[in-house]
């Protein structure tokens, strides 16, 4: 059985909106207000960042992650795959723009077989995806760093979960 993970439309829409607001906030002063050179450089840099952010939203809209017992495959505009047996890097970070560090998002980074995959927690059923990857990482002897361990615990993924006899998760069973 193959499980498919995609970014929800609502989230993609939010990203488009942010990119649009960012582009407007930076492009309008650039085009209309004739700012001094320091501000021009800064605004051009930020404009590029917002354009890249928008392009990434388009890219995400058409990206699918297919997870099976053998590995994870990213399809869409870019194609990449990592076999679970080759997974040798597993990082789970948490970011929040709020001072109380609430209402943030997680970022999963998988490395293996010369490929890297980055997945945000905004994707559907992110916790299941992390659980499957964590099991594979544990099976391969990848030691998660302190940040990753803390974030896994916050998702309710314990060491016992990761060490279950089913090496590559239950997705294909």
């Amino acid at each position: 059985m193959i499980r498919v993970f995609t970014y929800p439309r609502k989230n993609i829409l939010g990203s488009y909106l942010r990119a649009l607001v960012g582009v407007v906030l930076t492009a309008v002063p650039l085009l209309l207000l004739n700012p001094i050179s320091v501000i021009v450089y800064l605004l051009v840099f930020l404009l590029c960042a917002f354009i890249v952010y928008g392009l990434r939203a388009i890219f995400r809209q058409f990206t699918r992650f297919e997870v099976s017992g053998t590995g994870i495959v990213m399809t869409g505009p870019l194609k990449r795959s990592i076999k679970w047996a080759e997974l040798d890097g597993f990082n789970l970070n948490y970011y929040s723009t709020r001072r109380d560090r609430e209402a943030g998002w997680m970022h999963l980074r998988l490395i293996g077989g010369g490929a890297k995959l980055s997945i945000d927690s905004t994707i559907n059923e992110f916790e299941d995806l992390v659980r499957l990857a964590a099991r594979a990482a544990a099976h391969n002897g990848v030691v998660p760093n302190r940040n990753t361990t803390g974030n896994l615990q916050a998702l309710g993924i314990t060491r016992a979960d990761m060490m279950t006899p089913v090496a590559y998760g239950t997705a294909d069973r």
Partner: protein
Amino acid sequence: MFTYFVHRVLIMIPTLLVISILTFVIIQLPPGDYLSNQLEELRSQGESASAMAKIAFYREQYALDKSPIEQYALWMGFWPGPNGFSGLIQGDWGQSFAYDLPVKEVVGDRLGLSFLINFSTILFIYIVAFPIGVYSATRQYSIGDYGFTLIGYLGLATPNFLLAMVLLYYANVYFGVSIGGLMDDKYINQPWSFEKAMSVVDHMIVPVIVIGTSGTASMIRRLRANLLDELQKQYVTTAKAKGVPRLKALIKYPIRMSLNPFIADIGNLLPDVISGSVIVSMVLSLPTVGPLLLEALRNQDQYMAGSLLMFLALLTVVGMFVSDVLLAVLDPRIRLSGGATK
């Protein structure tokens, strides 16, 4: 991380806009303005036609007789004035009515010198506080720890300006040197040269120590407390039990974790250091923006005050941004009270 950067920038831009509005409202709050006061003064002395014409010119140039919204838009450079778009965004800081010169000319090197002093002070705080904080935590209740604690409390309790006056007095009485100013008199208003730069470095030592003392003391206390918390956690005990060398068991995680307040404080330190340095700058006759800002606020020199306040706000917002990004890199962990959202 890229997503974090973009989200954070999206918060920063409106924040700066709101700050600019607040700054403008605050400098407009007192009744009247500098030109009205001047007008009254001229009238009481018998009107001078040229001075009255100049005041009328400024009123028109800066839309002082128009609505506050127009004045704000003009000041920021969002709206064209008689000379087209000409505001903060275009690098025109307006006119200092008190000096009758463009704000940029009045401020001159002061902005750079203020930045230099504040940056050096923050560097001083970190360089001094870090080793002392680590020493105090790893040798809790030792003579050294008590000694540093005592010095720390003295540093916290002593007002900066008092320390400045004491140092001024003793430097003069015992060493026969005047430590006021930020460079030797012969370099004032001279073009920059290596000698002038070295003179600035020489004169900066005392102000940096004076302004940085209280910040250093509080940072030592915070680092000590945080590191002590970390050192008492189970993973440190486990590491020691497994024979991990003492230094490695200290550096690998406890120090990294206790560095968070160091990083988080970059944003808070900047405004503290800047506001704390205003009185010290006056006592030590430092050519920084602090005394200029105080004078501008007292005189209702609105463009001077507004531009300087915006500069300080920009420093603070950028400081906060830098500290948030560094914190996100250093400690991307969820807090147990929080939760990831979709």
